[in-house]
């Protein structure tokens, strides 16, 4: 049987006295997009860098395409996009991609890749003169140029404008369609929800949730609206069927949870009318991944 793209069990990584990864276990299937989510310092980059062979684990086992990450034959089979840097500041981006392509047996055409990522005009621009978003795209291009089986993308859309972000998403979608396994880290919940087959949320070096975006957000729906902050929800609660919950989070954003049936909607709108409130953006939807994320990892700043 073909081994999974990535298989991590009981991974431990320490930096001095800090334990960055504390018994982390996760797997990424072949041909799927797996997103690793987590607050800053959760251990995302450390995990990815151990998979890429850049760092050594202090405990546990890691297998990439069934092999130890230090195996040299993986270098040709795995594409890597680091979180930042990795390109000489004076190198022209077209030259850099051509150089990267020469390391591989059946590379993509660098010019076609530049065009695809909207960088054709900048082929002769030195890396240091490019905007942050353009630099990110050069890095992304370099990660796929060797036609790898698996790519690791560490925050691929950080600092990208909306157009570039969509171009990146599209490329990830095409990679998946072509049968490439993708493991990416991100802070953007919408990105994880849209792109990935599987989401792994990690916090303090451990997995706190793992599943498809739909299974994590659950089947339960909720009613949301915006209105002026500080409405008296107690009154509403008495009117709602038992088992319902209502909260204001964050300020001015109201969420009603419970059996979302027509009566619930009627009760809420009647109450709003009585309060003299117009509910903006009234909608019935599932919990978002962001709700799940904040529930699991807390709201405090790290």
């Amino acid at each position: 049987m073909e081994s999974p793209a990535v298989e991590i069990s009981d991974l431990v990584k320490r930096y001095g006295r800090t334990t960055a990864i504390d018994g982390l276990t996760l797997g990424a299937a072949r041909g799927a997009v797996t997103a690793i989510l987590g607050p800053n310092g959760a251990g995302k980059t450390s995990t990815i860098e151990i998979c890429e062979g850049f760092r050594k684990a202090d405990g546990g086992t890691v297998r990439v395409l069934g092999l130890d990450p230090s195996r040299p034959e993986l270098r040709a089979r795995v594409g890597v996009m680091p979180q930042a840097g990795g390109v000489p500041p004076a190198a022209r981006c077209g030259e850099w991609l051509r150089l990267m392509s020469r390391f591989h047996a059946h590379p993509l055409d660098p010019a076609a890749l530049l065009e695809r990522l909207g960088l054709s005009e900048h082929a002769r621009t030195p890396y240091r003169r490019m905007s942050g978003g353009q630099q990110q795209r050069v890095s992304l291009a370099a990660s796929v140029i060797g036609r790898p089986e698996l790519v690791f993308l560490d925050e691929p859309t950080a600092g990208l404008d909306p157009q570039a972000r969509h171009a990146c998403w599209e490329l990830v979608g095409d990679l998946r369609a072509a049968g490439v396994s993708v493991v990416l880290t991100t802070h953007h919940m919408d990105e994880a929800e849209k792109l990935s087959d599987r989401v792994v949320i990690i916090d303090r070096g451990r997995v706190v949730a793992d599943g498809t975006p739909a299974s994590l957000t659950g089947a339960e729906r909720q009613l949301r609206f915006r209105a002026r902050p500080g409405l008296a929800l107690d009154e509403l609660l008495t009117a709602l069927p038992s088992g319902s919950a209502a909260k204001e989070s964050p300020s001015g954003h109201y969420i009603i949870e419970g059996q979302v049936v027509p009566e619930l909607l009627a009760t809420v709108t009647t109450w709003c009318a009585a309060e003299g409130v117009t509910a903006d953006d009234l909608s019935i939807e599932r919990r978002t991944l962001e709700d799940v994320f904040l529930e699991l990892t807390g709201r405090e700043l790290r």
Partner: protein
Amino acid sequence: MTTLDLTPAPGAAPLSRMVLAQTGAEIRATLRNGEQLLLTLIIPVLLLVGFSAAPLVNVGGGSRVDFVTPGVLALAVMSTAFTGQAIATGFERRYGVLKRLGATPLSRTGLMLAKTLAVVAVEALQIAILCVVALVLGWSPTGSPFAAALLLLLGTAAFSGLGLLMAGTLRAEATLAGANLVYLVLLGCGGVVFPLSVFPDSVEPALRLLPISALTGGLRSVLTSGAGLPLGAVLVLVAWAALTLGLASRTFRWE
């Protein structure tokens, strides 16, 4: 929009293609870098012309250009193999380039091979230019060109080891400052344009053990005096090369 065939087709290119591609990139980066060119070409040419034309130092009899040229050839090797390579590699480490290259099929051995080839290619260019300038100034070399080439290669190994030792252990800024400082000190005390005899007798023997003095002294004895391969100089250079390359390979940090 162009369609790209992203279907996996992984595979490393043949080692020779990877190494040549990386060598080309390294040479281009060196020749495009203004500060690097100042150090590797402009300063050696100016020293060669200046010290050959004007009676700035007492070279004890013989022709000034015959004395200065071997020193400037040694300086050219030091500027590329040591100063240039140390600074470039130090910043590649700092910008994560070495780490990124480590994630490609190009092995570390391949990368080191490419760096060495690039250094040798740039040196060949420097030496060609300096020889032409020296010949125009009336340089009349004697001795075996093979002995001179061997000394230049040993010097390259010793200076590369020293440069990589700094680049792989110090911060990039410290390497930048340190490599320039060492360049200046060795330029002054290594017999490049001033003969070692200008120094007091108490320090002269110690100065003779510097890699730059071994290289300038060795090249002078071959090219100016027509002597055979100078074993003393060869020994000093081999010892420096073994020591610095050995230490560098143990201590080099790739990120």
